[in-house]
């Protein structure tokens, strides 16, 4: 078991030197891929294996099985408390306290904050025993990429699913970690990362409706993990946004296929679509490392 939210079960054949030299293996690598399917921003249920089209490095694969078991969630909430969040952090914290009340009893929650550095406010624990979120005073620089890297370096526990949700204005000023270095972690992490760009409550609607070009690198990074990026106001939208992200996460299908027709080693780019009309949006990992 090695790669990210994908689990690659290596049912390896004995490999002869001659076979090792073959550019394409007839591999028996079983890949398990989790995917959320949305229609009009609402999770779609009741799909079967025949509804999914999966390509691995451009080669269509046969989806052998689909399950939709909602595993308990290990949720990391990550809050930007840097100086640029001064106008939003207090209201955001209040809203997050309300939103975490929607977790299930078997879910776990931890809370991270970042400014000059990254700090764990409290460790992963059942929501019933969680510490109430203190009021934070925003200030200082923004170690945004450091915080994302810290959140991505988690080991997925058996029978549980890893979700990280970050609330930020997405301006990094002090990280040692670069975006490029964080992307490498995102490709290999088991954590699904979802990002909310938070605007002050008084921001005009157009600020929330458009995805500015400078948010694109973050959108691409979270997409690698199967997550999404949204822009929102720091008001009651926080509760609905977080609840929706968790609900979408729980609704994911688990797709299983045996990777065929592609070399095992290296990066495998995955594309998942739905073989039905209806404007479906699929959120799934963008790939995995084989070998």
């Amino acid at each position: 078991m090695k790669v990210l939210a994908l689990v690659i079960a290596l049912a390896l054949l004995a490999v002869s030197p001659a076979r090792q030299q073959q550019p394409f293996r007839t591999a028996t690598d079983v890949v398990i891929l989790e995917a959320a399917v949305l229609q009009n921003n609402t999770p779609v249920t009741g799909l079967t294996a025949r509804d999914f089209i999966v390509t691995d490095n451009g080669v269509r694969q046969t989806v052998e099985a689909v399950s939709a078991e909602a595993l308990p969630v290990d949720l990391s909430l990550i809050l930007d408390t840097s100086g640029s969040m001064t106008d939003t952090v207090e209201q955001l914290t209040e809203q997050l306290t309300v939103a975490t009340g929607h977790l299930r009893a078997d879910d776990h929650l931890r809370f991270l904050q970042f400014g000059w550095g990254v700090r764990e406010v409290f460790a992963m624990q059942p929501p019933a025993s969680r510490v109430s979120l203190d009021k934070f005073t925003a200030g200082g620089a923004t170690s945004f990429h450091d915080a994302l890297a810290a959140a991505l370096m988690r080991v997925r526990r058996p029978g549980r699913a890893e979700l990280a949700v970050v609330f930020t204005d997405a301006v990094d000023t002090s990280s040692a970690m670069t975006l490029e270095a964080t992307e490498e972690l995102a490709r290999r992490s088991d954590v699904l990362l979802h990002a909310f760009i938070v605007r002050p409550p008084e921001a005009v609607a157009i600020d929330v409706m458009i995805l500015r070009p400078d948010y694109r690198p973050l959108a691409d990074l979270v997409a690698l993990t199967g997550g999404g990026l949204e822009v929102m106001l720091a008001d009651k939208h926080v509760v609905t946004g977080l609840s929706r992200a968790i609900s979408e996460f729980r609704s994911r299908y688990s797709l299983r296929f045996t990777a065929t027709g592609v070399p095992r080693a290296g990066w495998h780019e995955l594309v998942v679509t739905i073989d039905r009309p209806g404007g479906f949006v699929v959120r799934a990992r963008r790939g995995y490392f084989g070998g």
Partner: protein
Amino acid sequence: MDALELYALGDPAVIKMVAEPRAIGSIAAALVKHGAAWIRANGPSETSHRRLVAVTFALEAVRHVFESLEGRPAWEMLRWASGELRQESKPTDAERVWRHGAIAILQGFGASGIDVVESELNVATSRFPAEPRWLLIRAWRAEMDGTFNPKTIRPAPLDGTIEVPPGVIRAYEQAMRAPETRAEAATRLAYLRCASGRVDLAIDLATQGATLTTEPDIRSLAHLIHGWALTRGDRPAEALAEFRAAHESLPASQSAALWLARSLFLNGERAEAEALVDETMRTGLGELDPFRLYPRGDFRLWPMLIAQLRRAIR
């Protein structure tokens, strides 16, 4: 006793007051207006000591507006204090420490303090022409002008594409000539060589930086930069060893811990990586992390400099 006398004695209430950024306006106004009279109030035998008390008090107040961007009264007070110290006929070691502290704070302010750094650096050089530290600070000044992002005060990105102005390299090479600043100048130049894609030079300089000093901050930073250069050179196993050395040199450095954790994670050692991340989130340095302080030069030395000054005024 007045506030300045209590400050000299280390009175906690006065220390707390001077640490309140909102007090900067009234402190600055009072010192600029009445400071000279207070300094001379007990006659010539106490003037030098009282001057040092007043200017140290001013310096500490300026440091605490670091985050509040209340620059103007801070600059006025700093200019007043700097001018007062120049009235000492013979420069003392305490004055050298004070001037270094003032410049360190201004470096901490980033771009908003950069013009004042220049004028204070000129004063410091005229008072202490043999001090090698000023050359290193001039190199930092050149680096800030030549390669920093002026909006975010971020140093040059490590994508190997930056053209470092020759003047910046010359300034650091000059600072490398003095034994006191050689390791730090080599380390900073290693960063710039890495940013410009000269991995070979970066590795050589970072090695010098790590071996020429026992200072944990600089050793850790040098190993970290060495690891980045090796990463850019696609030598992940050696990079991991350097990140481990960076972490061992200064376990509280969150930058070093996160890069070591990243190397472990990509190497398949996920449980060790997660444990390291958890540890650094509980105990790691925030703003005093050597890399996070890289753009702010000698601001990292502020705690040591103010401690020396507080001892000098007792």
